[in-house]
């Protein structure tokens, strides 16, 4: 066994160029597998993280209310109160087209939304200054609002200065009671994440001149029960609307699942392509081993004449093939990890780490390829007739 390894190393070293070319296929295949799998899994965890920050526990309702069939906010809250075991918090969301004004300064890209007191908790955003919207603001239709830091800076010159001031939305004055801390850490921009005004939804229905609320966000208590929650919502809405086309119920986690399965499919596909290159590399190993056997027919003849059993010759050539391809595998792993390191230096959006399983699997596959594709030439060598083999030049 040890002797076979020695001989294998000797033979590989004796034909450096040829051994390298044989390994090249393995090197490319293994490094491709590692790079692809690592980058894809890095991207996947980046996607998952960014979706988690959007809130995977959210279900969004979209209802087309008709005069004849509709769901009122009170009915929604009634349903919600009956199902607090399933649902955590709920908010109607009413988008208002409009302009936010302080005196002569105005912002026209600001997103103005009517929400409930739960909205801030659902978003999981912290206050910079002041207070958030409260239940009493809803029921008493207080003309108050919570604004983003961009609006506070632009119109009032800071969060503290903004609180207590009034802001005019489409002509109606609202008192600013709180400012949310900066959410987009990189930049503050017009129409960006921090350019918003939240008002009580009860006021928003008036501003929007629409008695009905079409959109809700509801959070689920248990992420494993998302589909149960969706079914409950759908049943409730069907009872009211009698038509499935008049509403949609979408969970953020569905989107995440969809993206996950898309990325997984992509990674399996790419891995498969890289796998094919490993297979081609295996054929290369077999080819070279066949050449090697033909070239060394005489050597095999001498060894057999001096008493080498079939198994000894078989072992010698199989080990040579396996050693060749596993050296290729190790080089491929090194190159793959090196390339990932380089990718990470230039790609700051997300980090890829070579996964242990990718390394282990591709190394095992390259050794396996050596054994598998080395077997046929080795078995041919072991069956050579010593007389014919000795006669060959």
């Amino acid at each position, binding site marked *: 066994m040890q002797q076979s390894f020695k001989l294998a190393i000797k033979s590989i070293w004796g034909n450096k160029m040829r051994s390298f070319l044989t390994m090249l296929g393995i090197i490319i295949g293994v490094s491709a597998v590692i790079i692809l799998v690592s980058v894809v899994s890095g991207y996947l965890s980046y996607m998952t993280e960014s979706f988690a920050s959007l809130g995977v526990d959210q279900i969004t309702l979209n209802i087309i209310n008709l005069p004849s069939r509709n769901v009122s906010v009170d009915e929604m809250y009634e349903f919600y109160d009956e199902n607090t075991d399933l649902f955590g918090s709920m908010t109607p969301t009413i988008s208002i087209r409009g302009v936010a004004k302080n005196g002569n300064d105005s912002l026209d890209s600001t997103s103005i939304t009517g929400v409930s007191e739960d909205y801030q908790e659902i978003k999981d955003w912290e206050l910079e200054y002041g207070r958030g919207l409260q239940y009493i603001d809803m029921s008493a239709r207080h003309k108050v609002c919570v604004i983003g830091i961009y609006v506070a800076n632009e119109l009032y010159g800071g969060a503290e200065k903004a609180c207590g001031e009034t802001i005019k939305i489409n002509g109606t004055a609202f008192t600013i009671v709180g400012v949310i801390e900066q959410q987009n850490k990189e930049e503050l921009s017009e129409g960006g994440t921090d350019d918003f005004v939240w008002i009580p939804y009860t006021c928003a229905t008036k501003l929007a001149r629409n008695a009905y609320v079409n959109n809700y966000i509801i959070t689920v208590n248990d992420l494993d029960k998302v589909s149960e929650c969706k079914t409950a919502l759908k049943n409730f809405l069907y009872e009211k609307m009698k038509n499935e086309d008049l509403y949609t119920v979408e969970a953020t986690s569905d989107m995440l699942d969809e993206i996950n399965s898309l990325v997984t499919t992509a990674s399996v596909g790419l891995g498969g392509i890289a796998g094919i290159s490993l297979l081609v590399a295996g054929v290369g190993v077999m080819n070279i081993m066949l050449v090697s056997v033909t070239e060394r027919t005489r050597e095999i*003849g*001498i060894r057999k004449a*001096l008493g080498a059993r*079939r198994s000894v010759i078989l072992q010698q050539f199989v080990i040579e093939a396996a050693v060749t391809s596993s050296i290729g595998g190790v080089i491929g792993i090194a190159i793959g990890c090196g390339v990932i390191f380089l990718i990470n230096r230039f790609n700051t959006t997300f980090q890829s780490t070579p996964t242990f399983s990718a390394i282990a699997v591709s190394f095992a596959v390259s050794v396996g390829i050596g054994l598998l594709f080395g077997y046929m030439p080795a078995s041919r060598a072991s069956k050579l007739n010593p*007389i014919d083999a000795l006669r060959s030049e």
Partner: protein
Amino acid sequence: MGEPLIELKDIYKIYQMGSEEVRANDGISLMINRGEFVAIVGKSGSGKSTLMNIIGALDVPTSGSYRLGGEDVAQMSDDQLADIRNRMIGFIFQQYNLLPKSNLLENVELPLLYAKVPKEERKERAMRQLGRVGLAEKWRNLPKQLSGGQQQRVSIARALAGDPSLILADEPTGALDSRTSREVLNFLKELHSEGNTIVMITHDNSIAVEAKRVVRIMDGKINFDGDVENYAAII
């Protein structure tokens, strides 16, 4: 002395060449005792190489029985033949057949390696044989760094390394000039005088007469078997 080492009885080796049947060995019976020095002589195509392959356990006869040191070789499998060759026969080839990429020591060690002799003993025995043929200090060299005569001496050392019962030399001087041929022949004689059994295959009568006993093969049959003095008389 006197105890039979090789017992060949009614050996036939028949090849099918297309529709034609070639009888390379056509009923050969031969007995060689331990300690003999026998030359098997014959022209090319006489069947002497086929006979040498059978004696050397490289091939099995189509029919007939072959006992080597009491063991029935004729019915053996590939691996059993390999073991027999390893244990009982030391080969000396015309083309030396040394492994070109291994040094002299590794070459001489080869039969011991397949006999699973432990590493230290292997090295010690191989070095002893290299010393015997006068090449101990060159053990690190590759075969191609040696002259033809020296290479043949290495192959003799390799043949002796496993302490075989039979030394089988196939045209041992075929590739050498007359001076080195003489050296090799003298060495074989020396081995014989130490009690080794030697079978030498050659086409050359002047080489054959160096042996004690000559067996001449013609058309797959033995047509002379006797003392070298008698053989010298008929050529």
